[in-house]
């Protein structure tokens, strides 16, 4: 049974890698959007597994986006190097900030992460080197916008996020985060270094969000602080996707991202003037019907344990 899982994953990966051979530019562009939201939803869920609710997705996403833009524009970094710079910048900032904010819990932490995003935005908006409120345009997008190459980069980011999530679930990090979420006192008395784990997970998940932000800038070629790069959309959509797919799982946010992105696009093409209303209703009904998310429902149906 164990080997079947790997076989299915390998087949899925081969199919995903070879997609550009079979589908056109538009489906690949849609796949990029799905991968962006999937990575954000999954990274958000990884931190939530410790019980820490973060609203800082857009903040680190934007930070990564700006890191990519600045390193490409001022230092001439090639696109892949600028993506690494985005991940490292977001990860480092998260680690540094995490030292103080990860002492907070529950809503206090959630609000501070929301404020962090706002702080990053205000800084980006007021500095001249970041283009101020008008933002900046990238001289040349990644691989000159070649659909297949950009898709492979996005796929690599998506797969990397899934692998990190699986590592988090298969190693002692899983036990540490679950015990922190369930009862911190018990976790501490069991020898779990709560603070260390929280900082590591916060830094890693923020690095993923920064990496995705960098990729977004490389895909669309610009940063703009108010309406796009730090948009609240990058907080709300990933959370909704993770909720619908199922929390505390790797495949839940993946399913949620695929499902909601596909539904949103199909609705838009079929009901041009009212798709947002129908989409909203579907999201509300979906979450009401599957309180444990789609993965929760599947687990219940097939009686699969969380282990």
């Amino acid at each position: 049974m164990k080997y079947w899982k790997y076989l299915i994953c390998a087949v899925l990966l081969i199919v995903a890698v070879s997609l550009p051979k079979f589908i056109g530019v538009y489906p690949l562009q849609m796949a990029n959007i799905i991968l962006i939201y999937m990575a954000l939803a999954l990274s958000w869920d990884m931190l939530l597994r410790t019980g820490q609710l973060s609203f800082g997705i857009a903040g680190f996403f934007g930070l990564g986006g700006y890191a990519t833009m600045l390193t490409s524009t001022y230092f001439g970094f090639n696109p892949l190097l600028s993506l690494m710079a985005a991940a490292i910048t977001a990860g480092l900032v998260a680690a540094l900030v995490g030292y103080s904010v990860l002492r907070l819990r529950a809503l206090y932490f959630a609000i501070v992460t929301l404020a962090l995003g706002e702080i990053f935005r205000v800084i980006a908006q007021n500095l001249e080197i970041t283009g101020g409120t008008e933002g900046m345009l990238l001289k040349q997008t990644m691989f000159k916008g070649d659909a297949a190459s950009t898709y492979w980069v996005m796929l690599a980011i998506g797969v990397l996020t899934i692998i990190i999530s699986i590592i988090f679930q298969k190693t002692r990090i899983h036990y540490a985060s679950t015990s922190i979420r369930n009862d911190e006192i018990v976790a501490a008395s069991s020898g779990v270094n709560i603070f260390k784990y929280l900082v590591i997970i916060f830094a890693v998940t923020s690095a993923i969000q920064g990496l995705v932000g960098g990729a977004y800038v490389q895909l669309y070629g610009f940063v703009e602080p108010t309406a796009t790069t730090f948009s609240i959309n990058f907080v709300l959509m990933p959370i909704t996707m993770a909720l619908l797919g199922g929390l505390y799982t790797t495949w839940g946010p993946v399913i949620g991202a695929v499902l909601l992105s596909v539904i949103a696009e199909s609705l838009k093409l079929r009901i041009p003037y009212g798709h947002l209303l129908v989409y909203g209703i579907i999201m509300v009904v979906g979450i009401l019907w599957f309180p444990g998310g789609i993965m929760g429902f599947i687990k219940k149906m097939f009686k699969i344990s969380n282990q």
Partner: protein
Amino acid sequence: MRIKVFIVLLLAAFVTGLFFVAVPAQAAEPIKIGALLPLADATGKDGSRSMELAVKQINAKGGILGRQVQLIVIDDELKAEKAAAALDKLCTVDNVDFIVGGMASGITMALIPGMKKYGKVVVWAGAAYSGVEKAMEGQDWFFHLHAWDYQQGAYYEKGWAEVKQKYASFKRDKMFMAYEEGAFGSGSFKGQKVLAENGKYEVQGEAFKSAAMGGGDYRSVLRHAKEFNPDQFIWVGYDKDALPMMEQAKEIGFSPLTFVGSPPAWPVDFAKQPLNEGVLLYSYWADTMKNVSRASKTYSDAFHKEFKDTPTTYFGPLCYTNIMILADAIKKAGTIDKAAVIKALETTNYPSPLGDTFVFKKSNVIDHQANSWPKFMQWQKGKLEVIWPWEYATAKMIYPFPAWDKRGKASATIEGEKKAVPAKDAKKDKVKK
């Protein structure tokens, strides 16, 4: 026998003839135009309906080059990634021949890489941010209809100078600009400061968080404006800011000599608000222009007949113009070949419902910039009246802006009349026949 052979041959020739006649009709694929607009926004709704109207009118007259026109509108959702995907769909799935539409500058920025990749002829209605212009340098397939931010600023200055020249009582020595903190607002303020230096008047400004971005409290900015005591107050924001801005200005009793709002669109029900009386604004079009411009009247009447409604934003006539300009160029070119259509577009001379006759000229950076110019308008008795340019004026300006505690009484026009000129009287003689 010979007669039978002759009849068979005749029938065969007739059938073959029919076949050859029928083939071109079947093969005449429609000319496909792809449009990107934010359909959940008033600008996108007006724009897409006006484009549909234009296409319907073109097809009713037999289409272009004997082919029907097919319009494919996709909602850009005001999201960069969705807009880019929509452009890919239009170019690779729908295989459109031309691209039109566009509203927000931020979204246009995300479309630039795709537009360059596909290199199709683009006749773009929106985007005022001059950063877009810089990015489009050297792209001969890009035709832009909306004025760039710096062009608008310079044109406003020209307008105010003309108002000042005509009316000695008009004062504009001190200006305060409240601007939304995004690219649109702060770009406008940046430009205004330069213009104020050249125009030698005092300007102060302060940013606010737009209600469209989660803000909505303007009291602090309005108080600072009141302390500055400007002759002219301008707020640059979005439609969602309009009502709370007016309510809060009333709350603190702030009524400068001129109160100007500069959102891309106004709330649909703003016309019904008594708070709107005397508010000036910059826009390209108002429905009242049908009384002074034949093209505007034709458009307005057709729109009303088709949708039993009136466009609330200038994106309606702008998008109508967008399609008509392209259609004229294709007709002139006699083909949909890119180079020929570009050449034909360069000779555009289209009397638009916006009032201006559209021709393409060089702007600071690009070669194909239309000469569309904003107008000064004012809310008077629930209607938008054009104040300037004089040739499109549908009413005289109410001046000064009526104080909040004196509302309900007759407003004075800039010429000292006690009552605002009823729109009907002012317009009657001006209809160009």
